[in-house]
Structures are given as C-alpha cells and as structure tokens.
C-alpha cells in the first residue's frame, strides 16, 4: 500500500486517496474547432508510461483536494507531489 504525501495534509495511506489518471490533460478551449480525431485524442487517448509518470490523485477520504503526483510506474516510488496551480488558461483572442 502506497504512502502518499497530500500537499495539504501530509503523508497518508493510499486507502484515503483515489486515482484520477494522467495529469496535464487540458480541456480544449474551443472544442468546436477540433475535428473528430483531435477530439477523440483528448477524450480517450492516454499514455501508458513505463517509468516516471505525472498523474492526478484526490485525497477523497481526507481534504478532498486534487493534486499532482510524480510516480514511477515500475517501482511505485513516488518522487514528488504538488498542488494544482490556480491559474486561468491562456485564452487566445481571435483577431
């Protein structure tokens, strides 16, 4: 059972957390501009990395915050955890 450091609460057992898949998948700002293939890539395609992997976890039985975990998918070693940045997306304004 993993030990995961929640950036808000500290080190806790894996049973307090739930897994949220690959991190860093951004929702397209203008989905309507994407063709079916591009939309399907966003929707369905995920990496299956062997080695270091950035993923989302939720402290679901704790503070309920989502955060980022850098984990080695081979050794299960957790290298780092970090909060999600509170930033607005960089919206491109049409000319």
């Amino acid at each position, binding site marked *: 059972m*993993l030990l995961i450091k929640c950036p808000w609460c500290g080190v806790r057992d894996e049973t307090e957390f739930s897994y*949220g898949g690959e991190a860093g998948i951004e*929702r397209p700002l203008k989905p309507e501009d994407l063709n079916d293939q591009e939309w399907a890539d966003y929707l369905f395609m995920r990496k299956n990395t062997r080695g270091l992997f950035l993923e989302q976890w939720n402290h679901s039985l704790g503070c309920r915050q989502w955060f980022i975990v850098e984990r080695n998918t081979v050794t299960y070693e957790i290298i780092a955890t970090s909060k999600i940045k509170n930033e607005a997306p960089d919206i491109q304004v049409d000319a």
Partner: protein
Amino acid sequence: MQINRLKSGGQINRDKTLRFTFNGQSYKGYLGDTLASALLANGVDIVGRSFKYHRPRGIVGSGAEEPNAIFQIGSGATTEAGMRATQVELYDGLVAKSEKGWPSLSFDIAEVNDWCSKLFGAGFYYKTFMYPAKFWKIYEYFLRRMAGLGAAPREPDPDYYNHQNTHCDVLVVGAGPAGLMAALSAGKSGAKVIIADDQANFGGSLLASKELIEGLTADKWVSSQLQMLEELPNVTCLSRSTVFGYYDYNFLTINERCTNHLSEFTEGHVRQKLWRVRAKRVVLAQGAFERPLVFPNNDRPGVMLASAVSNYINRYGVLPGKNPILFTNNDSAYQAAIDMKIAGAKSVLVVDSRSEQPSDMVDEARNNGIELQFDAVIRNVIGHTKVKGVEISTYDSGSNTCAAQATKRTCDLLIYSGGWSPAVHLHSQSGGINKWDDNRHCFVPHTTKQASFSIGSCNGTWSLEDCLKEGIACGRDVAGSLNLKVNDINLPITKKIKLNPMMPLWQVIAENSVENLPKQFLDYQNDTTVSDIYLAVREGYTGIEHVKRYTALGFGTDQGKLGNINGMAILAIALGKPIAEIGTTTFRPAYTPVSFGVCAGEDIGEMFEPTRKTAIHDFHTESKAPFEIVGQWLRPWYFPKDDEDMSSAVIRECLATRSSLGIMDASTLGKIDVCGKDAVTFLEKIYTHDVAKMAVGQCAYGVMLGEDGMIKDDGVMARLGENHFYLTTTTGGAATVMSWLEQWLQTEWPHLTVYLTSLTDQLSTIALVGPNSRRVLQKLVDADLSNDNFPFMKTCKSEIAGLKVDLFRVSFSGELAFEINVNSNFALYIWNLLMVTGRDFEITPYGTETMHVLRAEKGFIIVGQDTDGSINPHDAGLGWLVSKEKDFIGKRSLERVDSIRSDRKQLVGLLSVDNKSVIPEGAQLIEKKSPSGPTPMYGHVSSSYFSPVLGHPIALALIESGRNRIGDKLLAISSDAKAIEVTIAKPIFYDPKGERQHAK
C-alpha cells in the same frame, strides 16, 4: 494408545490429557501437542490422499511446509478447511477430518488414478476436458470432488474478528535466534519494536535444539531472552502471529490467532486479529525450509524431514519410528539420527551421498552407535501405505551416477534431508531480488527494494553463532539508521561446531536413464513429479513461470515451500542450464492461508456498509413500509394499509395522488449549494441548458453529460440569487456528482471562484403532490401560492410554523406539486403537520414504487434505469434541453459521427397489444418475423408498470430509430422466453400537454 510417545522429554504437559478425533476415531494427546504430533504419537501413518493420484500420504514436516496433513477442523458454522495439522495446536474435543480420500483413507477408490498415471501427466486436464466446452461444468464438479479441497461452512461464522492498524520503528519477522537478537538489540536501543512469530512459543529452531547457549539449554535461554523483551515497554511480542504479506512502502499484514488453540469456538473473545503494520524498518528472520530429496516413491507414509523428526522428539516427546534410516547430503540432518538414537531407536542407519570427511556431526553420530554408510543413496522405497524398507545403491558423486545393483534394507521410518532453502517469501513479496549462491546451493536475498534486512537462515546463514551475530548487528544497524542511541548487547557464548559443506543432489536417478521409474515427487500437495517437469520441457516450456503453471509446481497453499527449489533445479538439468538462469517463481501473499473471517474483520453484517435513514424514517417504520435500499438509503417502497399487498397499495397510492393528494419523502435527493462570483460560468459548462438566462427564483430541469456526451445525471436546479444556485442530483449519484464537480473546479478551472457545499443530509425534502396540494400547503404558509404569483418551475422562501422552508413548484409526477426543503432536524415535525393538515383531502403517503409509476406515466426518465451510459440527451428525447449557443461538457461529443447516427437507440413508449400484459423490464425487442440467422435485437425495455390511472400496462424502451417507428409492432422476449406483442408509442402516456402540473 500413544504408542510412539516417549516417557519423558519435550515441551508438553503429560498431566493434561486432551481428547480428539480424527476421521471419527478417538485419540488422546497432551497439552502442548500439535494435531500432527498427537497423531504421530498415536501411530497414525496415513493422514491424507494425494491431490491427483490419491496415493496414501503421511506427515512429512512439522510446520508451514507440511503438504499432506491438511485437514478440515471442526464442524458446522465454525469449521475451517485447509488447516495444516502441524500448525493446529491440540485442544480438548478437537474434531479433525482428512479432506481427501473416499470412501476412506486406507482404501481410496480413486487410487486407480495412480495405477493409470501414464494418462494423467502434466496438462492432463487441459488436454482431456476441453471438448465439448459446455461439458466443463460437469467435469469440474467431479474433478473438484475428487481433488478434495475441504468444505466451507454453510452457516454464518459466529466468531468475532478484528483489525488493528499500527506503526512501528522495526517489525521483526520470526523469533528464532537471529530475530530474538535483532529485536532485543533494537529494543534496548529504544526503538518501537514488534516481533512476530507464527508458533505458540518463541525460539524457532532453538525449540528443538540440544545446543547450549550461555551454559543454558536452548529453550531456557530462549525464555530468558523473551523475558528481557517483554520487560521492554517499547517491544510488542506477538506469538501465533504469521506475517503473511509484505506490500509497498513497508506495509505488512499479520494474522494473529488468538483463540484457535483453545477451542473451536470461544464465546466472547476475538478469534483472530489482522494487524496492518507500517514499519520504518523490517527485519526478516523467518528461517529456512528443509528440502526433501528426490527419489522414486519418496512420498510414502513414513518418509519425513530430518528437522521434523528432531522437532517431534525434542518438542513433543514423540518417537516416530524404531528402526529409522536417514538419507542426507548434509551435516545438519545428522542431528535427527542422533536424536532418534538417544530417544531410544533400536538401530539407526545414515546413508550419506557424500564421501566421508572429518566432521563433529559424523563423530557424534558414530559415538552414539549410529551406523554410517557413505557414498550411497536411497534409490527406491518399499512399502505402500507405510515405509517398510529401502533400496540402497552406491553413488559416485564425480559422475553423478548410482550403481545398478541395490541392497534392500528394512526400516519403519525414512528420514531425509536435501539441505536448506532460505524462506525468501517475504523478501520476494517486498520486491527484493534473490540470487543463486553456488557455495550454499540455495537462493539467498540479493538486493532489497524497501527498507528491509534479511538475517539468519533466511539469509543463508546456518550456524547458530553466526545467526546470533547477524541478529545483534542488524538490531544495531537498524537503531543507528533511525538515529537512536545504540545500546549494544553481547554475543551469547555457543559451542563452535565444525560442519562439512552439503553436496547438491537434486535427483538420485537421472530421469532419462531408467524407463518406467516409480514416481519421484517434487510437490506433494499438487502431485508434481520429476517426469512432469521433463514432459513440460519436451512440450516446449522453458520458463519457470510457464512450467509452474503447466505442472502446478508450487501452486496453492504450498506457495513453493517444500518442492520448489528441487523443481527449479530439475528444470535446470532438463534444459542444461545453470539454476541461476532459471530463477524463482513469483512469491505472492499470503505466505500461509488466511481465513476470510479475519480479512473481513468487523466489516460484516450491518457494519459492511453504512445505512442511511432520512429524518422522516420513524414515520415510515411506524407505517410498516417495506424499504428499498437506494445508494445506502433506506427508502420506503410503499405504505400498505391493513394487509394490503404491494400491487393494491401502489394502485391506491397512485389513484389517491392523481385524484387528490399524495405525500412523498424525497429527502434522499442529492442537494448541492453552489455560490461564488463565477457560479454562472461554471454551471454553464456543467449543464446543457442556458443557465445564464435563468431568472432569480427560476427552476429548471437540467441534465449533466460526461465529456463523452452521454447522460451522467439529472435533476431540478434553481437560481436562488445572482451568484447562488441550488442543484439536485439523483439519490444514487449524489456523491459522485459532487466529486465530479469538485474535480472540474480543481483541476480544469481552478481560477474560477465557486464554492460547492453538499446539503444532502442537512436538508430534507417533502413532496406534496396532487390537485389538492396547493390548497393544503396554503393553509400553512404566508407566501401567496396562487398560479399567478407562484407558477410552475418557481422557487421561493417561506415559513411553516415559524420554521424556514424553501418551496419549489416542481413535479416528478405531472401533477400540481410542491417540494418543501426544511432543516432535517424539523423534517418529521413538518411531515406530521402536513399529514394532519391534509387529512381532509385524504392525504396519502407513497413510496418509491408509486413514484416510479407516476413518473413513467409521464415518460420522465430515471438515470441509470432508462439510460445506461450510452444514451445522450437526443436519444432520451431531451434535445430541447441542449443549448446550441454555449459550450458545455460533452457538447463536442454530440457532434461525433457516432452521435449523429440515425439508427441510435431512442427512448420510446411501449403498449401491450393485449392491453393487459406487463412487459418484463429487460425484455429484448425483436421483429415479429425475424429473418434467418441471428435474430436482430432492436433494443430493450427499461421501465415497465401497470398504470392504475390508465387501467393498462405501460413501458419505456430504448429502440433503434425508435422515434421513426411509432405504431410499429414488435415482440418483447424476456428471459423466460415468453413473447409479448407490443406497439411502439410516444413515451408519454398521461396528460401529454402537461396541463395538470401547470394547474391554475
């Protein structure tokens, strides 16, 4: 008669006689016995039949490695299957049965398998029982019966089990010489230590040892060490506790058996405990398993491991034979021969495959009058149900061959030892790597993945002095690594013994040298033989993991304790490779079997899952309403009057609600308060409809889609203020929707200022439904409820009896209706007040079944019943809810090629052509005349009821291109294959214009 019991000696109490039965026969043993030692004392030779060939088998070992004496203990609700007699402590009244052997152990009819064994090699099941595939169920029934796998109790287990979570600095596994020293050394340095051992007493190999330590006998010395440990407040000693799993980040599980040794059932006590330990450091001192030697008929009853023989003599005062022969390739086994002779065996012969070399053990054996024969091997065992003798040949270790001639010699016990295999199970479970050691001829721990240390014989360290030394050093290192002040302990003084190295002897007779050899067993529990390994190799298997699966070597509860290393070595020989290249199989938890009871712990019965009750629950129980469990909630199903059955109650409730007034507890709806300056921006993304256009005080029915465009949840939502909303979700979806909203906010739009608060438990919701609902509610509230002032889909605040309420004019029945939200603490009071006020209109409480009928009459969907994760809003006829102007989650997916197919399944209504058959939910819909070939299935029935107000059955269904097929006739086929002819209709059966819910 305990014919094999010695007059004195051992750690048993001869004053405490215990009675027990084995296969219905009564026996006596003593306190301190295991079931195995007591059976041996009573001269019971056959304890089981083997898995495949049903050969008679006897006790081989004295601990976790025992492959044959596996019993069903007890009966009825407290019975346990798969118990090793070597690990079952005897108690008075113990009832044991062998799991294999029919009709009896001495005559097993299936032993015919042994005589025909040429037919039953490895892979036999795979090859034989493949055709026809549908017969497998029948084959399986007989195979399982023949295999004899014990029986699970049919009644609930009355025992109590619990779990304990704990943290420690050091977890020491095994309390033999190395483990004791490590625990003491770390403990004296102040570390928080847990030391666990699977036996009743600490000491491990020392319990049967004759060695002197610090001038004390081994067992006395162990007692003195245990006392020191117990005096340390920072040390927890757990006996009868098996560490059975080693998981990531030094998380280990321990199964402590608290009362198994007392009786089959001990009222008022915890039977077993599951410890869940997170340790900073783990010290593995589990010891080693003695290896069998491999030769023809090496499985006959009366063939026993050398260490087990010493255990039975020195710990239990049992002499398992009078004329034993010991077959060995190492020095340590000599101890068993010496113990036999001292305990009174008439003649003892040692057959050693090595040439004679000076050694302390050899000298001691000779001094005790033991006959020694070097350069010799046992090449066959004589006797069927019991060893009667052996065939001995001379052996040339240089050429690895034994002479063709053999001399016969009688004996009543064949003791064997092929050296030792470190118990690397936990080390391997932890992710550690093992390496073959060419000097010690065993796999030893090589690299570790976690903070663990292997010491003593599980590290391949054999001599007592070295084990003690390693333990002390390890305790010191561990304490140091934890920054504790190291408090050293002295190395206890032991006698130095000169030992000769063992000689690897994997196979007495090469498989391919002799035709038609009797079977040479590797894994007794799974009946895996040497020829199975050769067969696997001939059939092309080369990897140990494949060979394991093909031959069952090390399967099941054995987990590679007894025969694995021999099997790997023989695979290496068959492939002509060094053992180091073969490697080991994967070791998995559990190390020894763990009962389901202790895994479940307290999470059973009412504690299995929380039960949620609404604030109005007492009314429902007083009304004798049966409950339906929905998302952990207990919801009243219907409210029977007198001895009404369900269908009459539902008809009455439906008609009363449609004609006058019904009342329903809708408190289980998910309720979420959403506020913050970006609430509109957020909800615009969440819902398909135009949230921004809603006026304050406006309600709307909304659906949420997944990003795949499919309906995720639905419910009424209301705009309470400019930046303040109230959402409802389905009962079952409350928690997941809340989490889902949080995820979007936190991971995708963290820059939005939005606050989500679940109000599901804080607020109760009462639905007042029917043409007279306004009249009754108006009596209790000041707010003007007239249609002009409070039209359909509006919300307002008001008071009832001085209590603040939120009113919603919404309807899930199609009737004029109001939902009243009130603080849950007052909900029952308000409910009762409404019941009294509504009496003049025969107010009728109704449950979930009537709610379903009423909503189905109106074609309102239930997410998860009329949708299934593949239904988008257009499919469900909710296209009118989908905004064309804004983006929302799932919108782009509605434009995908697959989403705009014309033959998608669509929600429609169904009417039975005979106007009286209620169509079973789940029924498949097919054409009345199907074309040849596979019958095309157009969809299925999702909701189906008898409509009391219409007087005929109604149903909702999802049918391909359904909306274009209104009026078509199909057949509905359910699992009982009954066909009902149905007509496709619009999915709205009652008040299609919606006049009733808009009532003025």
